[in-house]
């Protein structure tokens, strides 16, 4: 695994005081927080910063990290020393996040919730199985994960292979995270942000009790054609001027396949039409909206130019009549 320079990640000197570290983290968190940031790779940067702050804000972990020495460079191949963690006394139960560090009042640290997704470097130094990561018996907690699906998958239902990591007790009494793969059937009609519960797939109980549940939060990827709003979908439908003016039947793509639809005579650009029940399935199902966009044929050929000239001569049409009244 590669060494991580936590001081470099937060942009502080190795001798930085605790309040300088906190200040640096706050400034970077404001810039890269995935809920508010538009920076590229904000989520990955933010995770790195969280990991660095998790170590440097905790005097015990920071002291242990500092003992590795100042000669390591980010990206260098690294293995924890064999006597790692010896010679330290740990406050609290030794669990990550137990040293009473909370950011906003009433908001528990991610570590306290057991939801970290930190690097192998962090896990090898401070995770389960190390003196920093010992945990006492307790009932299994609910876990939460994010799952991304396409709009078509949300419409039709889908299956996903998920790799779940579970802490398991090793013969020496320490815990290690072990991965196992499950196939999850996601029913049709899942909408943006909707929760999917997998009973008993959360954290296993330690020392008796029921395992927690796993909650997946569904996120639907942006679609090339359709825009999603709740269970409704909107499609911008280009139409020719004569289709808008005279009406006519046009082929319209929907999530369930192409359908024929009648455009009413006298339709205008921007007008919305509805295909009832053609959105995402549900009780009730969503609708599909068509936003009409009148597209003019280019006047590049002599025939097209002649037709436009004829319209100009024969139609008494002033699109700016309202402006001059």
């Amino acid at each position, binding site marked *: 695994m590669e060494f991580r320079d936590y001081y470099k990640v937060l942009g502080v000197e190795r001798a930085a005081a605790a309040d300088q570290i906190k200040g640096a983290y706050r400034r970077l968190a404001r810039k890269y927080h995935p809920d508010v940031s538009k920076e590229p790779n904000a989520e990955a940067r933010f995770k790195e910063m*969280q990991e660095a702050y998790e170590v440097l804000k905790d005097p015990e972990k920071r002291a242990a990290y500092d003992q590795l020495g100042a000669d390591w460079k980010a990206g260098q191949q690294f293995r924890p020393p064999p006597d790692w963690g010896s010679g330290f006394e740990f406050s609290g139960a030794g669990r990550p996040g137990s040293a009473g560090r909370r950011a906003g009042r009433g908001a528990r640290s991610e570590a306290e919730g057991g939801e970290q997704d930190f690097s192998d470097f962090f896990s090898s130094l401070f995770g389960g199985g190390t003196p920093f990561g010992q945990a006492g018996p307790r009932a299994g907690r609910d876990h939460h994960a994010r799952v991304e699906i396409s709009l078509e998958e949300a419409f039709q239902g889908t299956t996903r292979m998920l790799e779940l990591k579970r802490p398991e007790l090793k013969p020496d009494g320490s815990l290690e995270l072990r991965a196992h*793969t499950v*196939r999850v059937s996601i029913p049709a009609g899942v909408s943006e942000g909707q*929760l999917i*519960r997998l009973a008993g797939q959360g954290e296993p109980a330690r020392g008796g009790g029921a395992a927690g549940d796993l909650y997946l939060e569904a996120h639907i990827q942006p679609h090339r054609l359709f*825009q999603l709003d709740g269970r409704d979908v909107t499609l911008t439908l280009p139409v020719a001027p004569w289709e808008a003016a005279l009406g006519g039947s046009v082929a319209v793509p929907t999530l369930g396949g192409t359908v024929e639809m009648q455009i009413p005579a006298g339709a205008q650009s921007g007008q919305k039409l509805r295909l009832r029940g053609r959105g995402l399935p549900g009780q009730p199902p969503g609708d599909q909206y068509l936003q009409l966009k009148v597209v003019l044929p280019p006047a590049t050929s002599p025939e097209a130019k002649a037709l436009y000239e004829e319209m100009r001569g024969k139609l008494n049409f002033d699109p700016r009549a309202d402006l001059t009244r």
Partner: protein
Amino acid sequence: MVRVTQRLEAHVLGEGDWLAARQICELCRLDLEVVMELAELGVVAPRAAAAGEWQLPATALPRLRVAGRLMRDLGLNVSGAALALELLEAQHELERRIRTLERLAGDH
């Protein structure tokens, strides 16, 4: 070759599903007291269940998770998180409407 050790059937939680406030707090890493303060500010609408227990709609979880992250990671207080949440949602709605208008105008 991936070895599948289990096949699981998912239960989708919809608008009619309610979760115990305790469960929601655990999933959002928030204290119950904070969730109730967020409820007072209109962020979520809990209902009383049996014997002094509270329940929250399952649909409230994504909002509460964002609120929890903002409080935890940026050090916001409850009012700040509620305001940030409202502004972020307004921003997302405006971005959605801009995308619709851009499609109509043919920019994208």
